[in-house]
């Protein structure tokens, strides 16, 4: 049963610390998405990759957030330095082809708490 995996599932850190979240997309999928979910803002797209190249990161605060795909099986989202307002659940999703009709398959999320 192929699925998107994310690590860690939970992370508690102090303000100013670096946080790295990892995602393994479904094998063979060539698009990866990072979303953030908060009570106030709902689900927001942070970044979108196709064939490991960033296509859209307009939703991401550039001064502290960065997203990369070092290889086809790993996507990372980094926050440095972290702030309490970054507390949220971060979801990774992958899609099979980058087509406009693709279904995105979501991982279980990383719940981040910044104290």
């Amino acid at each position, binding site marked *: 049963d192929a699925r998107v995996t994310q690590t860690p599932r939970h992370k508690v850190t102090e303000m100013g610390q670096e946080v790295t979240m990892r995602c393994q997309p479904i094998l063979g999928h060539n698009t990866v998405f990072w979303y953030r979910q908060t009570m106030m803002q*709902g689900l927001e797209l942070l970044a979108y990759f196709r064939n490991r190249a960033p296509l859209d990161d307009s939703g991401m605060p550039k001064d502290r957030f960065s997203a990369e795909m070092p290889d086809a099986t790993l996507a990372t989202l980094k926050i440095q330095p972290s702030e309490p307002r970054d507390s949220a659940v971060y979801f990774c999703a992958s899609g099979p082809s980058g087509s406009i009709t693709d279904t995105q398959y979501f991982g279980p999320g990383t719940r981040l708490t910044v104290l």
Partner: protein
Amino acid sequence: AQSVAQPEDQVNVAEGNPLTVKCTYSVSGNPYLFWYVQYPNRGLQFLLKYITGDNLVKGSYGFEAEFNKSQTSFHLKKPSALVSDSALYFCAVRGVGSGNTGKLIFGQGTTLQVKP
């Protein structure tokens, strides 16, 4: 600008009764519409999508959705609700237009509560 509206924060229904979770959208060009469900402390699970063709789309767990172009709606339905259907439901749209990278725009979500 593309947008999705889920006008009800919560829908309550008795087990065995039909349920409807409402969604309206605004996009330029043809809409591609999706429904996802989220159980507590879990990721989003895909239920169904409308791309083209028949306006009634059937999906997982007995859910279906009706696409109505004139009303720009894509309501989620199920003929007979189960207590286990209680969850948070998200409608999403992906539209085709200039400058559109094809990203999904999600509604705010509707909590479905099915009572025994």
